[in-house]
């Protein structure tokens, strides 16, 4: 039982160790990486079944009882995040077989990739604040390495900005963890829920909350703190960008959701107003930034930011429906966004560039790829019956329930502008003729490479379709996850033992 919860980060770590000596043989190395991801997928499904049938589960590492040791906790939110990370990991590792050149594989690409997954999964499953910091660092150092691996000029330039700003976030997080320990004497998240409510120092608690917002906000790329993202995400090979876009910022959002439902349930007006303002501005600035771009990946990178706004919006509205919207949106967004980047990579392979003005003709050359893009892009824009529609609908309904009409208006405007960007890509890359030469056909690239490029894209597009056509079980699951977040009694019982929740006072 306790091993099962540790496996989501143990498997990638061991896969990384196994892949490193094999890095001289790209095919073997890639296969090890894929096997690791398949194994992870199995574990994630097992954890999900466990959590769905028996509520949140906790494991005490080294048998040190909470709140003294390190606790791993899986609840519905953690389980679904693990599952989706495993799927993204699998798809991207498959795609990377053809996208990552031999030079980068020899430098250890697959090991860093697996370490990144370990960091991501560790962050999702830990129930201890300092442990969360450690997993963030694992993720961060692996992402640094992946970003500059190969050492192209543009990679170093983007990498410097990414590293510089993310190190600031690290220091902020470390400081705020130290401060919260000073106030409460514990770092176990469940215990913090109880202890922080008894701290009679509202000024210090508010200051801490803001520190946490800034620390996780940099990682999540919310409004005034997102500048590292468009500076760096288009620099590395597209497989790296795809996994970054799918998972990294979402870990920041996950940390925000966890912190502001479990650790800081009080003082709602103050912190949640900050989050609300940041969310709205994130949505607008991201989508306006994208409208000004004429490079495939840069447009998508700005859209990551605007989508983060939606995720934080659900948290800021703080109702069961809104949080459920956030959870559903997160799953939908990770799938669609990863897929869009993978497709952009294949489109570049066919046309030779990412600049919209220099490429075109993909629809004529390969209707299949265009269909996949259509599904992912219009899902992102929120077209019924694709998954993005239901995600946006949940958030809109939640904002209407609270009579937050401004919020609803901003969400709708953002949706419309997303549609503008997506149709811009559609018109420029897929519809118009290739301006210089002709666009090569999918069948002109070798068969194995074609499979490696199309299989992950097809799988992700299929998930997007599934989420959209049969949304009900997923929405039910998200509502369940949201209720667990807002009523953490079961979570506390799982971590601290039965009856601990009675100390939580009014919550």
């Amino acid at each position, binding site marked *: 039982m306790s091993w099962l919860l540790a496996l989501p980060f143990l498997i990638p770590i061991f896969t990384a160790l196994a892949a490193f000596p094999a890095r001289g043989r790209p095919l073997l190395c890639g296969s090890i990486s894929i096997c690791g991801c398949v194994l992870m997928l199995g574990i994630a499904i097992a954890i999900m079944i466990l959590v769905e049938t028996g509520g949140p589960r906790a494991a005490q590492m080294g048998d040190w009882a909470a709140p003294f040791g390190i606790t791993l906790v899986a609840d519905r939110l953690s389980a679904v995040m693990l599952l989706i990370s495993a799927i993204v990991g699998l798809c991207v590792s498959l795609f990377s077989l053809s996208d990552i050149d031999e030079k980068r594989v020899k430098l250890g690409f697959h090991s860093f990739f697996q370490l990144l997954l370990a960091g991501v999964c560790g962050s999702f499953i830990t129930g201890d604040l300092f442990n969360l910091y450690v997993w963030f660092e694992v993720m961060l150092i692996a992402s640094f390495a992946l970003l500059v691996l190969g050492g192209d000029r543009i990679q170093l330039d983007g990498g*410097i900005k990414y590293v510089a700003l993310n190190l600031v976030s690290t220091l902020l997080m470390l*400081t705020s963890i130290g401060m919260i320990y000073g106030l409460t004497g514990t770092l176990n998240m469940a215990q913090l829920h109880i202890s922080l409510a008894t701290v009679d120092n509202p000024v210090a608690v508010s200051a801490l909350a803001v520190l946490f917002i800034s620390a996780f906000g940099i990682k999540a790329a919310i409004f005034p703190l997102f500048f590292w993202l468009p500076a760096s995400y288009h*620099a590395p090979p597209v497989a790296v960008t795809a996994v970054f876009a799918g998972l990294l910022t979402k870990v920041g959002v996950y940390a925000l959701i966890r912190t502001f439902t479990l650790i800081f349930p009080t003082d709602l007006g103050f912190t949640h107003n900050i989050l609300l303002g940041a969310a709205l501005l994130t949505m607008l600035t991201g989508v306006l930034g994208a409208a000004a771009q004429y490079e495939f990946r840069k447009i998508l990178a700005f859209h990551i930011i605007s989508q983060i706004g939606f995720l934080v919006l659900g948290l800021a509205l703080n109702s069961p429906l809104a949080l459920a919207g956030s959870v559903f949106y997160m799953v939908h967004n990770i799938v669609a966004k990863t897929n869009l980047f993978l497709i952009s990579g294949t489109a570049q392979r066919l046309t030779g560039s990412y600049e919209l003005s220099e490429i075109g003709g993909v629809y004529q050359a390969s209707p299949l790829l265009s269909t996949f893009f259509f599904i992912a892009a219009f899902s992102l824009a929120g077209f019924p019956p694709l998954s993005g529609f239901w995600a946006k609908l949940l958030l809109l309904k939640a904002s209407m329930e609270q009579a937050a009409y401004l919020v609803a208006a901003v969400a709708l405007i953002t949706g419309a502008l997303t549609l503008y960007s997506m149709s811009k890509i559609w018109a420029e890359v897929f519809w118009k003729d290739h301006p210089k030469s002709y666009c090569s056909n999918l069948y002109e690239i070798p068969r194995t490479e074609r499979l490696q490029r199309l299989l992950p894209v097809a799988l992700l597009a299929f998930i997007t379709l599934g989420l959209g056509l049969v949304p009900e079980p997923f929405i039910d699951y998200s509502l369940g996850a949201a209720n667990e977040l807002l009523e953490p009694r079961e979570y506390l019982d799982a971590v601290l033992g039965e009856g601990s929740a009675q100390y939580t006072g009014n919550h």
Partner: protein
Amino acid sequence: MEGPLALVVGILIATGVYLMLARDLLHYLFGLILISNAANLAIFITGRLTRAAPALVPKGLEVPPMPVANPLPQALILTAIVIGFGLLAFALALIAQAYKVLGTLDVDSMRIAEPVKPKRKKSP
């Protein structure tokens, strides 16, 4: 003892921020190093300081007989120092490589990933 140390943390952070505001990347990194030390020191203080009482349990007892220093923040700082060392060493190596490849450490002239005037050719 907490008061003076808190003051030291403040001075470290102020110096670090001043350095980080420079355009030169190396100054930025030195600023980060100072602030990283300040963060570690701050965690140390949050555990409350106890003089000359290491957290050791004598043989035969289950708990120490008198109040001892809080060992947890010290363990946290050790972890944070190791992680910080790794990150900052990486950052230094990255800056060195960037200087070699890009030929400058002035952040204002690093515009390769984000060109100042992007091409805005509309397609015909």
